[in-house]
């Protein structure tokens, strides 16, 4: 398929955009990456995601697909040659999906909350994140069945959903001093994180932690200046 049949609207700091890129790489799909500045949002973005006006948006032919988890599942189903991303067993699929929802609706919002506050306000959020990562360490034990990834031998759906948060996880660790991935408490996830970042589908597109840190600090400064909006 010609490269310009597949476009991805995204931005380099976004972990959600990274998910789509990893999935496309796993399937060896050539695509055109269109970096969105987000201020202002491009016409193409507004047209292809009128509901949320957010990235990532995958455009396959002329069809837009939005929401990163939906995009990853679409990539898995549209390109059937190449490794499978979702597990084949419905029980395992449900477990991957459950933790993916947990990460997006509970864990990552707590992390974003943590980065938006200072001092004493951080403690309860840091505790919640630490508890969450212990749950994820246990989940890894059950899902991986002794192998390198949540998906087994190769990167699977939950690896992508969680792994793409690693950059921001490291940023949070640097900013707050909280150690989330810890040899003592989460030894399996420490190893998994290394394996994920070293994987051919991820290496080269995972943003550098220092660049993300700079970006996070600039964003925090901007948010402190601007009046709060809901």
């Amino acid at each position, binding site marked *: 398929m010609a490269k310009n049949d597949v476009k991805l609207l995204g931005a380099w700091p976004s972990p959600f955009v990274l998910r789509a890129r990893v999935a496309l790489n796993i399937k060896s799909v050539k695509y055109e990456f269109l970096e969105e500045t987000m201020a202002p949002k491009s016409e193409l973005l507004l047209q292809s995601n009128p*509901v949320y006006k957010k990235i990532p948006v995958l455009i396959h032919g002329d069809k837009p697909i*939005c929401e990163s988890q939906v*995009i990853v*599942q679409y990539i898995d189903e549209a390109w059937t040659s190449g490794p499978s991303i979702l597990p084949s067993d419905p*029980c395992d699929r449900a477990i991957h999906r459950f933790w993916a929802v947990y990460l997006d609706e509970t864990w990552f919002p707590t992390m974003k909350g943590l980065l938006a506050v200072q001092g004493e306000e951080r403690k309860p959020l840091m505790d919640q994140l630490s508890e969450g990562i212990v*749950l994820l360490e246990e989940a890894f034990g059950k899902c991986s069945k002794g192998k390198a990834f949540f998906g087994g031998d190769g990167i699977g759906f939950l690896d992508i959903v969680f792994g793409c948060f690693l950059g921001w996880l490291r940023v949070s660790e640097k900013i707050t001093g909280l150690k989330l991935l810890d040899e003592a408490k989460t030894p399996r996830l420490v190893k998994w994180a290394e394996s994920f970042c070293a994987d051919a589908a991820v290496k080269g597109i995972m943003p550098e932690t220092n660049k993300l840190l700079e970006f996070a600090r600039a964003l925090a400064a901007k948010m402190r200046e601007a009046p709060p909006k809901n």
Partner: protein
Amino acid sequence: MADEVVLLDFWPSMFGMRVRIALAEKGIKYEYKEEDLRNKSPLLLEMSPIHKKIPVFIHNGKPVCESLIIVQYIDEVWKDKCPLLPTDPYQRAHSRFWADFVDKKVYEVSRKVWATNGEEKKAGKKEFIEIFKILEGELGDKPYYGGETFGFVDLSLIPFYSWFYAIETLGEFNLEAECPKIVAWAKRCLQKETVAKTLPDQKKVYEFVGQTRKRFGLE
């Protein structure tokens, strides 16, 4: 070997209703266990340790949580009857997107009407109508979100119909006047036996909401 299928649920839960409709569509026999959410059973706490929420679907002793995850699981395991998701990858993505939209928006915005008073309720009502106008736009002139047949998105949204009377009464508006296609769609869905038999009576839900509001000190 006969499948052992148990559903831990709470009768007014729109999320639980999704699972009940899916099970009815597939003709699956199951044991329904009503949970008292103010006194959660040891089984619920064991099977849903993270969120401790219903619905929980237990298939041969293994739990599945989160209503849309449960529905997809049911669709994948009992795949030979009544598919709930389309086969085409793009149509599937489209269905997942809109079911996710319902999940992200409709419960919260409903709560902003039934669980508030005064200015908050007014703002909630405005938002509720806006969300349903978006949903109405997506439905267009199709009989169902799934096209010609009832599908994943229809299933994810129709349970909220049982809460419409409560929301309209408390919000002091008429949804049929604001979003006629949504109400027409809902009535079409209710012609399906699986939906009609699953959805609780709107007045019963209204009574339940009233009791809940009293407990929250809103009445």
